[in-house]
């Protein structure tokens, strides 16, 4: 029944790539959707902008575990109603989709105010100099949006990392899963120690994300 600390750490390290893959892919998926959502919301296209608002509100207000269950159990159901009977969603898929969905809603709400914080005169100056809309966006607006958005984006990443602790519920054995399995195999006799190790691992992941964002902040700041 007793387990060694080394054995526990080795098990954690073995499954750590699963957490990292899910974090990277859902962060990337979330970023792409967030950019699209922010664009749709800023452009104020009738109906579509309102739908984007609704999406953001839904993604931010529904708890992560419920989103995970909706992606895992709901998507195959919806697809079968559309006639795709044999399509199944793997637990990894569901985790990436639901985390990306949640993340896109959260960071779209970071990007939108960051975009709106750019003074109107900057747009006018670029227009008067004959910039095309694409050139204006990438050369004038985006460099001013990024430093404003980065701290909020960093927070979004930290929340995303926290939410990966839920994916064991649908059977993905990540670091939280290994922790629960160790606890269960020993009938809960070493629960506090294992949770302490897990807390350190999540802290390390959040610290790394924080460090990278801070580096990016420094690189993109005007000063």
């Amino acid at each position, binding site marked *: *029944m007793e387990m060694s600390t080394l054995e526990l750490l080795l098990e954690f390290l073995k499954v750590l790539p699963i957490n990292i*893959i899910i974090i990277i*892919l859902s962060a*990337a*998926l979330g970023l*792409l959707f967030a950019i699209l959502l922010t664009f749709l919301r800023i452009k104020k296209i009738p109906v579509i902008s309102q739908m984007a608002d609704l999406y953001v509100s839904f993604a931010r207000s529904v708890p992560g575990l419920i989103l995970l*269950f909706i992606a*895992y*159990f*709901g998507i*195959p*159901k919806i697809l079968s109603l559309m006639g795709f009977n044999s399509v*199944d969603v*793997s*637990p*990894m*898929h569901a985790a*990436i989709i639901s985390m990306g969905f949640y993340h896109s809603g959260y960071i779209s709400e970071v990007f939108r105010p960051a975009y709106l914080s750019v003074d109107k005169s900057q747009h006018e100056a670029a227009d008067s100099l004959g910039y095309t809309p*694409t050139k204006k966006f*990438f050369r004038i607006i*985006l460099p001013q949006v990024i430093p404003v958005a980065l701290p909020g984006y960093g927070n979004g990443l930290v929340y995303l990392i926290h939410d990966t602790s839920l994916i*064991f*519920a*649908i*059977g993905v*054995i990540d670091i939280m*899963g290994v922790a*629960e*399995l160790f*606890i*269960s*195999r*020993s*009938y*809960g*006799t070493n*629960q506090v120690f294992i949770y302490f190790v897990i807390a350190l691992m999540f802290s390390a992941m959040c610290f790394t994300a924080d460090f990278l964002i801070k580096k990016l902040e420094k690189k993109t700041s005007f000063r």
Partner: protein
Amino acid sequence: MGKRLISFTLCIFVLIFLVACSNDDKTKAESDGDKNVRIIKVATGHTSKPLSWIDKDGEVTGYEPEIIKELDKVIDGYKFELVAVEDSAGETGLATGKYDMLAGGLGFTEERAEQYIIPSESNGRALIKIYVGKDSGIEGIEDLVGKNISPLSPAGATLKTVKDWEAEHPEHKLKYDLADVGIPMADRLKEISNGKYDALFYPSSYGQIKIIEDQKLAVRATDPIKIIPTFFMIHKSEENEKLKEAIDEGLKKLKDSGKLSELSVEFYDEDVFQYDK
């Protein structure tokens, strides 16, 4: 910058596709094997030792998963595939049809009978026992009047059992709180051993015998105060009516051959069927 964004987007979708393929390959290969064999996905718990859990080698094991593996041997036309998930995910997946069966140590209720197909043959027994100090002299529920009882979970059959007993014996009043705090079984038994509480009502399928032995606790269990047959739950659909018949037949064979009792002793350290009258 625009080109970079497009390349980044493509990379993400390719990566997600690759992750997905690596997950699905196994299932595909198995289902292509024999077209006359129907694959049945059975959801089960992953941290409910000894009922069901994932062992060191990553294998799903436990009393109910091992019954499923035995059914695989005695039933033709079906191949059972165990999927270990959280209890709530198991029930949600069964209701939506993601899983065909659920092995979760569940008893019969009218609500479950409405929602799922329940086989006629049960697969085991949930025994609700009272865990008390070794020298406490407590033998039954009537001895607990005026005693300090460990908090009862507001959900599940244990509280119902105690409430039913109180309704039948209005002259005896038990004192207890309701709490669902997720304290591990080992800690709950220690609370009996160190005298914090006089008694703990709990189903006996949480490895208590092993914990008491391993931790050398001065705790013993009374005879069951309630015996509840447990069943596999099957997703409600027309084609699963046949599956129910096959499960009934298979379970009967396993029970008659003594295999269920054997597995019970292996995982629960006692034959849960010994209390049947």
